[in-house]
């Protein structure tokens, strides 16, 4: 199989802007699926609304393009009703953590087996460049013409506190690392979160003078460091990459099987 075997090629070229990191996330994700040798019929991708959400139309899996912020809630219905399916849930930062924040923390709390991928470009792209809960302080956006005063979430810390049993972070510059982390997240039994910093040159980059896509990738290279690395130790202000949480905890659908046993007196 090659990556193209997982695409709905008739809908290409895709609708994302030139240099958009979301295409690289799609690229990395398909390589992870390919490396794991997963059957396309076993995969359901659910997404919400926004630039990120269009990813589900391009993959040759069962795909569910839903409403803004609710991808994880739909995914919970799919997974819980048919636990043998693999759930991939890519979301934008606004989708996952603003309008969808409640579903994000509760899916993590349940530790239901699915992979949430936060495609973090720190902006609402489709609506034209408004700040998101991941933009952070002192950023320019169409709804923050005098710079943002909103603090940002730390996706890793939020996911960890909410109970996700696998949490990782990488960037679109570190594409090989992204493939590896996605592989491990998809393979993980339980709720896994992979935050991928993904450049939006059209809105975030232009407004915040980060240059074009290549320049934004250079910034990912310069401003991040691997967990446990010398670079991170010497400069803790760098954004850490790698696996932050990887634990085995009871998974929700499996726990419910026990409920069925209790309800039936073990007769099933």
């Amino acid at each position: 199989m090659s990556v193209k075997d997982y695409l709905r090629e008739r809908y290409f070229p895709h609708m994302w802007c030139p240099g958009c990191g979301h295409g690289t996330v799609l690229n990395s994700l398909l390589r992870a699926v390919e490396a794991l040798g997963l059957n396309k019929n076993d995969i359901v991708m659910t997404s919400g609304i926004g630039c990120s959400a269009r990813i589900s139309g391009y993959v040759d899996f069962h795909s569910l393009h839903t409403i803004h912020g609710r991808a994880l809630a739909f995914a919970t219905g799919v997974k819980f009703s048919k636990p043998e399916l693999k759930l991939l849930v890519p979301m934008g930062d606004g989708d996952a953590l603003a309008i969808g924040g409640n579903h994000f923390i509760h899916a993590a709390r349940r530790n239901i087996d699915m992979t949430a991928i936060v495609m973090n470009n720190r902006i609402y792209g489709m609506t034209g460049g408004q700040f998101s809960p991941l933009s952070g302080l002192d950023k320019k956006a169409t709804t923050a013409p005098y710079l943002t005063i909103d603090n940002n979430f730390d996706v890793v810390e939020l996911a960890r506190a909410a109970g996700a049993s696998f949490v990782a972070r990488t960037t679109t510059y570190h594409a090989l690392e992204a493939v590896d982390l996605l592989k491990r997240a998809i393979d993980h039994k339980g709720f896994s979160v992979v935050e991928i910093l993904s450049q939006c040159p059209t809105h975030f980059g232009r407004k915040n003078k980060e240059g074009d896509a290549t320049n934004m990738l250079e910034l990912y290279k310069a401003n991040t460091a691997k967990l446990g690395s010398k670079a991170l130790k010497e400069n803790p202000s760098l954004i850490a990459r790698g696996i932050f949480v990887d634990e085995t905890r009871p998974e929700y659908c499996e726990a419910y099987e026990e409920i069925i046993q209790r309800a039936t007196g073990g007769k099933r």
Partner: protein
Amino acid sequence: MARLKLKEHAINREWCKGCGICIHFCPKQVLELDSMEKVVAATPEDCICCKLCELRCPDLAIEVLTDQDEKND
């Protein structure tokens, strides 16, 4: 591990949006944009088949085909 030998850079000109990521990060400066703002392999003989262009391409428009790949098929 046997070294990969380049067969060709398969570039989908319909899909390429000319963002330049592959060109900028190519360790051997193999790639460039043509007059249509599409990527082409200008000096394929220098390619070391690291496939970073293929991995990072946001348009899924470039594939580094190698002899090793063919054997795997």
